């Protein structure tokens, strides 16, 4: 081999030993730089975020307008009006509510349509099996609307049956006092140790994301709704309480927020149908299991707990405070890891920790230009307007006032969820829709090429490009009839 470039050209070999060594060194140097860049890119750039000390620093809150939320104003509660358990209020849109209540004969889903067949309903029922078995153990009032089937104890007290079972002698491995707080309190080295240990336990128990925030009463419901049921499962009307104060039994110091990923495949191939309801209910089941496990873990360390799901407090607000994500246009939490495809549970405790900080990673800026969820929403419940538009304000009491966020028309959202008449005819769920979650560009599996796009969305000026490329590259579509028909037959 020629030793110099000139020799190489003169002899026609085109390449010398010196050239080879130079280029090898250059290639090795480039590989080394790429390694350093890749290490940084993967861990830091793809998940770059701005952190804030408190939620007030991240999201403007007008305390003159802000009010603590009452659970009876949650949109799901309004759907109970036909039962007579919840009185109608002038906040209800009668035309919309007639469709949701099933009193409008012109509005319904046809049972047997793809996504609403027996197999889809079976998936839904299987998903909620654990939740409905355990859900009542998540405090006495249940996860959200549902309240517990109650046992009457010998002294005449009504106790949710699953709570009774936890401390019943009939459980051979539990027995009386199983759920009690241990007398000896475990001493952690410091708040950082406590946070590490509890988060580790939560993840081993089955949580996908864990964040911890200090207690802030503003985000706890001012009142909650209780529908105690008898052993036949029928609500005891005289015991219904629409204004029950949230009583955790102690003054918490911290809230541990748990996030659970829901099935990407269900939202990709089954959005808008009962398939999504099955994925959602699977999330509820995991909420019930893991929050109970974590609560028992803390109780056996000697700390008081109050574990809950949708009830007791605003889950999205607590998750934002715990640094799990940012609010999006679709009015739910958007996480870096799973987008909006998560369910949330909380465990309040009197243990203090080193707390996580609220963070933002460009969601609001991206949502301003994206609007894919608003375009796709079949009932136009999601606003197209800017977050800074003066018209972006609460629609009614179903929205929490005073918070700088996108406001959703919750009643219009429920139109696509269920129709009481349909549910009565099919005996199953109408579908938790989820189209907004399915089309959201943040809803992606954890793969490297989606991390690259996350980096792009964080670059000012490239949000629009990322938004349109999402569609061009085949993401974010709503499943068609054939996809729903094929869902249980092959990968869709």
């Amino acid at each position, binding site marked *: 081999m020629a030793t110099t470039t000139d020799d190489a*050209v003169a002899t*026609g*070999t*085109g*390449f010398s030993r010196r*050239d*080879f060594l130079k*280029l*090898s060194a*250059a*290639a090795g140097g*480039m*590989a080394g*730089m*790429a*390694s350093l*860049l*890749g*290490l940084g*890119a*993967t861990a830091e750039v*793809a998940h770059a975020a701005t952190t804030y000390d408190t939620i007030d620093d991240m999201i403007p809150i007008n305390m003159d307008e802000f009010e603590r939320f009452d659970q009876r104003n949650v949109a799901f509660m309004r759907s109970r009006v036909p039962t007579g358990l919840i009185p109608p209020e002038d906040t209800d849109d009668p035309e919309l509510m007639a469709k949701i209540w099933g009193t409008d004969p012109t509005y319904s889903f046809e049972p047997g349509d793809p996504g609403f067949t027996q197999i889809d309903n079976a998936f839904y029922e299987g998903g909620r099996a654990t939740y409905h078995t355990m859900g009542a153990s998540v405090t006495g009032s249940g996860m959200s609307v549902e309240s517990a089937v109650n046992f009457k104890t010998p002294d005449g007290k009504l106790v949710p049956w699953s709570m009774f079972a936890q401390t019943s002698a009939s459980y051979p491995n539990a027995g009386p006092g199983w759920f009690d707080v241990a007398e000896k309190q475990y001493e952690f080295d410091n708040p950082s140790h406590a946070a590490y240990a509890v988060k580790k336990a939560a993840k081993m128990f089955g949580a996908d994301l864990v964040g911890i925030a200090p207690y802030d009463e503003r985000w706890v419901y001012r009142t909650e709704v209780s529908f105690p049921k008898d052993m036949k499962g029928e609500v005891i009307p005289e015991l219904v309480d629409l204004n029950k104060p949230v009583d955790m039994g102690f003054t918490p110091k911290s809230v541990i927020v748990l996030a659970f990923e829901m099935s990407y495949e269900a939202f990709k191939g089954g959005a808008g149908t009962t398939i999504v309801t099955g994925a959602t209910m699977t999330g509820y089941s995991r909420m019930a299991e893991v929050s109970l496990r974590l609560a028992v873990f803390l109780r056996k360390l000697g700390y008081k707990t109050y574990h809950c799901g949708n009830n007791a407090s605003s889950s999205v607000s607590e998750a934002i405070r715990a640094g799990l994500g940012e609010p999006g246009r679709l009015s739910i939490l958007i996480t870096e890891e799973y987008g909006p495809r998560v369910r949330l549970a909380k465990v309040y405790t009197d243990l203090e920790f080193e707390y996580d900080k609220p963070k933002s990673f460009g969601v609001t800026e991206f949502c301003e230009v994206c609007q894919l969820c608003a375009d796709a929403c079949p009932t136009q419940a999601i606003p197209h307007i800017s977050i800074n538009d003066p018209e972006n304000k609460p629609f009614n009491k179903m929205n929490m006032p005073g918070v700088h966020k996108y406001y959703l028309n919750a009643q219009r959202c429920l139109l696509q969820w269920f129709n009481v008449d349909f549910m009565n005819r099919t005996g199953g769920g109408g579908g938790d829709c989820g189209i907004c979650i399915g089309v959201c560009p943040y809803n992606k*599996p954890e*793969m*490297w*090429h989606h*991390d*690259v796009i996350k980096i792009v969305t964080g670059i000012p000026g490239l949000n629009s490009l990322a938004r349109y490329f999402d569609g*061009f*590259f*085949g*993401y974010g579509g709503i499943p068609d009839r054939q996809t729903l028909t094929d869902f249980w037959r092959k*990968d869709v």
Partner: protein
Amino acid sequence: MTLLYVLIGMVLGAAALFLVLRFQKVEISSGKRAIVYVLWLIALLLIAFGLSWAVAALEEGVAQSAAMGILVFSGIGLIFGIVGYRLSLPGQPAATDTE
């Protein structure tokens, strides 16, 4: 971690192709040498990125994304490569007046 491996693969792949090209007897005038090498480097990185994207998208099951990845990223890389190749060609002698 996967992103790290992708970046290493892209760079090593581009470097390997670059080495192959250097074995060819290519005479590039000194004035254009730097820009030709830069264009080739960008071309190779983009082509490698597009191929990596396609593999990941196929693994995910979204064939449209794989195809678009090759079209957009590798396609743009191809354009850079073609421009670099054209610049690397020796200049044509000026036409002379035969009369």
